[in-house]
């Protein structure tokens, strides 16, 4: 349902991504891996439609991004970006509710509030609902943003969810919680999920397919179990084979 054909991205003459092609099917989880500076986050920003491509096209349900408006796109794909800090005293519930019903200026309907409460339950944030967002730990803030992002596409089918290092601040328990939620969404709502990860073992355990990036190009891709292997990892990350634990 998400297809990227030969996409490239340049910024002030410097090539960050070149000639990347990928596709993610309905109900599939794709992980993007690679060393620092390989272009993982940039690729995710291209896939989300935030960056304008230098070359290539991205299709969502056979429609190129250029034909989708910002609000159409926002109903079909949601993005969890890396750490977002907020300098103002918002409560957890207020931050979570920013994902809902943007068309209306008067605020949230009954249904919206139900969805947000349900999702706060799912991410185990209900007990902190009225706390100030800025008083939370990094991992808790991450879970609030997850709630917000899920709220955005909760009542959609076949939506696209993009996650940029979603586990960076989460403890083990909540890492598994996150991917349990992801798997359930894939199975029950037909979501497609693309996630940037650093933890190779986690990627192997939770994703169906994997793309390894190196200097903006695809280094290896395929079935996660068959792609995340010691030979590939040791040559890509410049490690000795005995340093790789998978």
């Amino acid at each position, binding site marked *: 349902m998400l297809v990227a054909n030969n996409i490239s991205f340049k910024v002030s003459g410097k090539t960050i991504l070149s000639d990347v092609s990928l596709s993610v099917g309905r109900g599939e989880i794709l992980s993007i891996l690679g060393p620092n500076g390989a272009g993982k986050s940039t690729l995710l*920003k291209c896939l*989300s439609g*935030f960056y304008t491509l230098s070359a290539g096209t991205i299709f969502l349900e056979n429609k190129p991004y250029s034909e989708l408006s*910002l*609000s159409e*796109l*926002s*109903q079909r*794909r*949601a*993005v969890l*970006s890396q750490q*977002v800090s*907020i*300098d*103002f*005293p*918002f*409560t957890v519930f*207020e931050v979570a509710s*920013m*994902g809902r019903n*943007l068309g*209306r*200026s008067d*605020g949230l309907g009954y249904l919206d509030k139900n969805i947000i409460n349900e999702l706060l339950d799912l991410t185990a944030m209900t007990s902190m609902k*009225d706390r100030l967002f800025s008083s939370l730990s990094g991992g808790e803030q991450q879970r609030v943003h997850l709630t917000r992002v899920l709220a*955005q596409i909760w009542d959609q089918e076949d939506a696209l969810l993009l996650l940029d290092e979603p586990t960076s601040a989460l403890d083990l328990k909540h890492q598994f919680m996150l991917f349990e939620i992801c798997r359930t969404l894939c199975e029950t709502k037909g979501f497609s999920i693309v996630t940037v990860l650093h933890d190779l073992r986690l990627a192997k355990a939770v994703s169906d397919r994997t793309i390894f990036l190196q200097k903006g190009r695809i280094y290896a891709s395929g079935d996660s179990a068959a792609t995340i292997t010691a030979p590939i990892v040791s040559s890509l990350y410049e490690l000795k084979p005995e340093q790789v634990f998978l």
Partner: protein
Amino acid sequence: MSIFSLVRRDSPISTTHRAFLLICPLVFVIFLFSLSIGAISIPAKALVFGGLDQLQQSVLFNIRLPRAILAMSVGASLGISGAAMQGLFRNPLADPGLIGISSGAALAVAISIVLIGPATGFLGLYGMGFAAFIGGTITSLVILRLSKISGLFSVTHMLLAGIAINALTFAGTGVLTYLSDDQQLRAFTFWTMGSLGGALWSQVFVSASITVPAIWILVLKARQLNILLLGEENATYLGIDTVRLKRTIILTTALTVGAAVAISGLIGFVGLVVPHLIRLLFGANHQLLIPLSALLGAGLLLLADTFARTIVSPAELPVGVLTSLIGGPFFLWLLIKQTSGKL
């Protein structure tokens, strides 16, 4: 239920009701106080229940009422422009006066005074308002560009750009002062200090005709302003056209600041203090923050102006001097608190 449950954050009453129950009566009391106090005393009881003599009526309708309403209108426009700028810059230290938008507007007005002469009547007032609007818009755009000059938004760059622009406009106004004649000189002095003296109904009309629609526009954009605080990238993911939103906010703010500056000169710190107090009491949600900043801004400037015209009576203190006297230390406190990470 005690009066304290209106102030407590964990109060059982909904924040919206709590906020309006607290602020509306407060502003009303200030309003009555301001109308009753002055060289000719008008008892508050007579204001509410009637029974004013002819002199009192004349003082009320020709002097006190226009001045009080003008103070409220200007205060409201300073309050909302502060709240909107802080949302736009995603920083609680952004104040139109501090970062140079007001002085940009003032310079434009000063130039128009020298080129065209002091304004009179409706057309003149709107003309000066328009000049201030142009000046305010240009400085807003310059500050927005400069504060992101290193790629990411930086508070330091924003404040330094504000200092530079304030210095430049100060120099510009200085040159104009040197060139100006006696009558123009008086007008300039009035602008740099900020005063609501000699308020007329025509000024009230001009100010309100800009402030009221501006409050309306910003209230409509309140949810989008909340989301803008997640950063432009995340706001885009949520379907917001951030370029258009920022343009709307900048133009609306420049318009309100312009109207305030053209009518009353430079009145500092109201835009900084008011939204901060509201956030402290009722949280950061712009759906509440914008209307409450308008209300509290109206109340506080009216209170400040009432003191400004009475404490050294029969002379009058420029209200801008008074707000700076209170706002300056407040800003320092805010700066220290923010640097120590408690904000």
